[in-house]
């Protein structure tokens, strides 16, 4: 088995996870994309453990640990999502803007998420 095959597949899965985290609006879909990224890392860990013939099996043991941490993360994440839903009746990431910098555009919840984010970045760095 060439190591380049699992490494390339893991890179592609990671990029798909990046796209999902950036492009999705629903919080649960963002959590799913984070899981995809974690799985890409797991595939890398397994492949390199097999390649390096680790006597301590560090890669595969770390994969198990990552799986456990991912399970804990999903549990806590969904609990937070449920708490947010109970308070706001919405889990759209674009509408959860209470912690953003106060800009003139961010007050009405815009259906288009790109424009307020861009203005927030440009105005956030300057002095008030």
């Amino acid at each position, binding site marked *: 088995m060439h190591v380049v095959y699992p490494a390339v597949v893991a890179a592609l899965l990671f990029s*798909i996870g*990046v796209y999902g985290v950036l492009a999705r609006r629903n919080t649960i879909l963002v959590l799913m994309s984070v899981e*995809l990224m974690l799985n890409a890392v797991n595939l890398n860990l397994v492949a390199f453990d*097999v390649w390096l*013939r680790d006597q301590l099996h560090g890669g*595969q043991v770390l994969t198990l640990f990552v*799986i456990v941490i991912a399970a804990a993360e999903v549990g*806590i994440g969904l609990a937070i999502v449920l708490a947010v839903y109970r308070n706001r009746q919405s*889990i759209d990431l674009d509408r959860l803007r209470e912690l953003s910098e106060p800009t003139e555009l961010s007050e009405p919840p815009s259906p288009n998420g790109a424009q307020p984010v861009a203005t927030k970045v440009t105005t956030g760095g300057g002095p008030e």
Partner: protein
Amino acid sequence: MTPALWPPTAQEIVFLLLSVVAVGSALLVVTTRQLVHAALWLVACFGALAGTYLVLTAEFVAWVQVLIYVGAVVVLMLFGIMLTRAPIGRTADLNSGNRVIAAIVAIATAAVLVTVVIDGFRTAYTPLEPGTGSAESLGGSIFRIWVLPFEALSVLLLAALIGAIVISRTDIKGRE
């Protein structure tokens, strides 16, 4: 010593087929317009990844992947979809407005990673030996060498469980 990258061996063909399934269903997870379908495509992706672990002789990790990811995490996701009363069926607004920027960033990440990985590991080759990732060898490794992180992780899992219960219960009030 190192065989050529092409033609692939039978193991590599099986691995590539499984990874095509994994990458394809991952793409569907991030592009589908139906929330429940995304969770179900996630099952397909994780199942195919478990298959690739099996091909890579990591049997124990493969079955843990099936048990925890396919069994527990996806079910938790479905519960989350259900409890937030997400729209079942086709919904138009699952994607935020910055799709194009996200696609550009993702393609750039993929290009950089694939280029670097191919350049770095072009000649790396390992023959697969069955049995190196069995439950016996992995269990011995965990409970002989990695037992301290294992115990710390079990405490972390307990803390996460209690935290999730406390966050999601409504009758526990904070201190005034």
